[in-house]
């Protein structure tokens, strides 16, 4: 078996629920009356990872880094440009929509905007029951029973089944979205910023609900979000993305304590800390903005903003390497041995 990015699988352990290798997704830019392709947005530019059973992989990064595109592409809501996607070792990359159907049951999605992702003309109960209808999984009576159970499980109560989306608050709508995702008993759920639109006190309720459901149902999660603290809280391992590439993947404790990529270091230090005596905290402040994914920098995509950038970084793109057991990073600083803290002189 090929090596799997992230952590090596222990012998005897079953195949990962999701495995992605070398994933690329480019969007063509068309211009002129003949819609000639004049360029490519390299939204996802070579991404590999796996997710085990009952595991949450957090995918974190800033706007435009490609994290949402990864989430949509692994569900084949977008066709990948290149790379392989496997579910339990079965390659789903080239499956047509009909042959995708059984896999769709096993992979569901929760969206960011609980206002845009629920059909305003359907009752909440019909929304949650619809996936079972589409997949012809249950008769009417059975379906209604299951919808009721799902409503109870996500903390809504069956009396809400006949209400319409506009009658719910943001947090309640997100509970409906979660119930819908659970309707088919999936193994993997992709959450695309599922708590970003919610207030802190409601966000905590939804995060707790997702973690409880995961423990109970042994769900695997790909949790895509920009909020590093939320991702750290909910994930077992975290992958940090920058301009279409994963720059670092490791378990969350290592990421927080020994970040090995300069971008991760800057990201961690930019997150404001809600604690006393936090004023005047020393931090790494990156200069400039994220470059355009239409014309990304040569070599390492981060070199234009990196405080440690070297000559090599401008020409050679660093590969994602396991520089420490279970700790993968793509940075030339560690070419001659792991360097930590990053500002220290290179290890001999």
């Amino acid at each position, binding site marked *: 078996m090929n090596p799997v990015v992230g952590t090596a699988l222990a012998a005897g352990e079953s195949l990962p629920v999701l495995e992605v290798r070398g994933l690329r997704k480019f969007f063509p830019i068309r211009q002129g009356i003949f819609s000639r392709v004049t360029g490519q947005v390299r939204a996802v530019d070579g991404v590999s990872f796996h997710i085990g059973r009952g595991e949450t992989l957090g995918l974190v990064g*800033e*706007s435009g880094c490609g994290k949402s595109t990864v989430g949509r592409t692994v569900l084949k809501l977008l066709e990948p440009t290149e790379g392989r996607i496997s579910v339990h070792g079965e390659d789903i990359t080239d499956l047509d929509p009909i042959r995708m159907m059984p896999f769709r049951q096993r992979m569901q999605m929760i969206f960011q905007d609980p206002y845009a992702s629920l059909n305003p003309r359907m009752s909440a109960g019909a929304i949650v029951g619809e996936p079972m209808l589409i997949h012809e999984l249950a008769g009417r009576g059975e379906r209604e029973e299951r919808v009721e159970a799902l409503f109870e499980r996500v903390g809504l109560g069956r009396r809400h089944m006949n209400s319409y989306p506009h009658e719910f*608050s943001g*947090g309640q709508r997100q509970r409906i979205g979660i119930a819908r995702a659970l309707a088919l008993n999936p193994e993997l759920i992709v959450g695309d910023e599922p708590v970003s639109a919610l*207030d*802190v*006190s*409601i*966000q*905590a*309720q939804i*995060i*707790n609900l997702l*973690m409880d459901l995961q423990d109970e149902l042994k769900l695997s999660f790909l949790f895509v979000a*920009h*909020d*590093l*603290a*939320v991702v*750290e*809280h*909910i994930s*077992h391992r975290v992958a940090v993305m920058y301009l279409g590439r994963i720059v670092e993947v490791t*378990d*969350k*404790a290592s*990421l*927080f*304590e020994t970040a090995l990529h300069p971008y991760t270091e*800057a*990201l*961690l*230090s*930019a*997150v*404001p*800390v*809600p*604690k*006393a*005596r*936090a*004023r*005047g*905290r020393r*931090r790494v*402040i*990156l*200069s400039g*903005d*994220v470059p355009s994914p239409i014309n990304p920098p040569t070599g390492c995509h981060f070199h234009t903003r990196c405080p440690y950038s070297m000559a090599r970084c401008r020409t050679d793109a660093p590969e994602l390497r396991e520089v420490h057991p279970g700790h993968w990073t793509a940075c030339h600083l560690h070419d001659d041995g792991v360097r930590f803290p990053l500002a220290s002189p290179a290890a001999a």
Partner: protein
Amino acid sequence: MDHANSLEQGFAGGGVPGAGESVLEINGLKTHFFTPDGVVRAVDGVSCEVRRGETLGVVGESGCGKSVTALSILRLVADPPGRIVGGSIRFEGRDLLAASEAEMEALRGNDISMIFQEPMTSLNPLYTVGRQIGEAIALHQGASKREAMEQAVEFLRRVHIPEPERRAHSYPHHLSGGMRQRVMIAMALCCNPKVLIADEPTTALDVTIQAQILELMREMQGSYGQAIVLITHDMGVVAENADRVVVMYAGRKVEEAEVDELFDRPGHPYTKGLLGAIPSLEVAATAGPGRGRLNEIEGMVPSLANLPPGCTFAPRCGYATDDCRNAYPPHREHRPGHWVACWHADRLLGEEG
């Protein structure tokens, strides 16, 4: 002026003449919205003062009234449906609620200026950014067009926009979100206001850009010494930038304290609940492989058109007793500078100590 007191104000207050004196006083402010569904009490009796050179953090969740408070200060609440129905707002002793519209126009952007969450909607897409900054300078300082443009370029330089001469001729859509917010800050500061109201200034920005903008605001406060009212939902932003903090819930101020005091010993169950509900990087990482549950605040914010009797937080509060359900608690100073509106504040403050 009490010198020791001004030193305590730290970085922000140091060196500002008259630091610690209040520049803006809000007393019993009530801003209500008259809608077909009833009266929405968006701000319902809020009092606070802003001192010279300080950063006052105003924190709370959606609908707590923090933005409406800010708009009320500048009398920008749309009427109808909104109206300021009670209280007073005094800027350097002058009653703003009694001021004429012409007086308010002279004051807005000059003495008190404001920056908003989404710079794209507050900048005019039809004019270059240099012209928009220059407009404020020409209007309030009586500068000629040319002088105004020169000063606009100078302000773009001060907010660290690269190539300011060229950028002054850019339109807002040419700029990134971070750059637009820098333009907004340049525009807000170009008339050297005494108070800058920043309503969620970094909420729409990525975290590394947020760090740049907050750093810029601190730097500008260091050079110009204006007071900042920093409105945000992000407790981390408050902790790292505010001197004092006002916590709002359902249209009222529930707690006010110096920033370290507030985070060390929250006196209101809502503040305490909020702090427990935020995932923390440090805790998440060191909690081991298991993931701790976050503290939940049960239920949700009540409708402002239909508030519960007594304390508005009581239905969600673990400390609530019959007292709470019967009467709204008085806002009292329980420790020096630490005000809490809760019948059980002493118990909460005791727990922390």
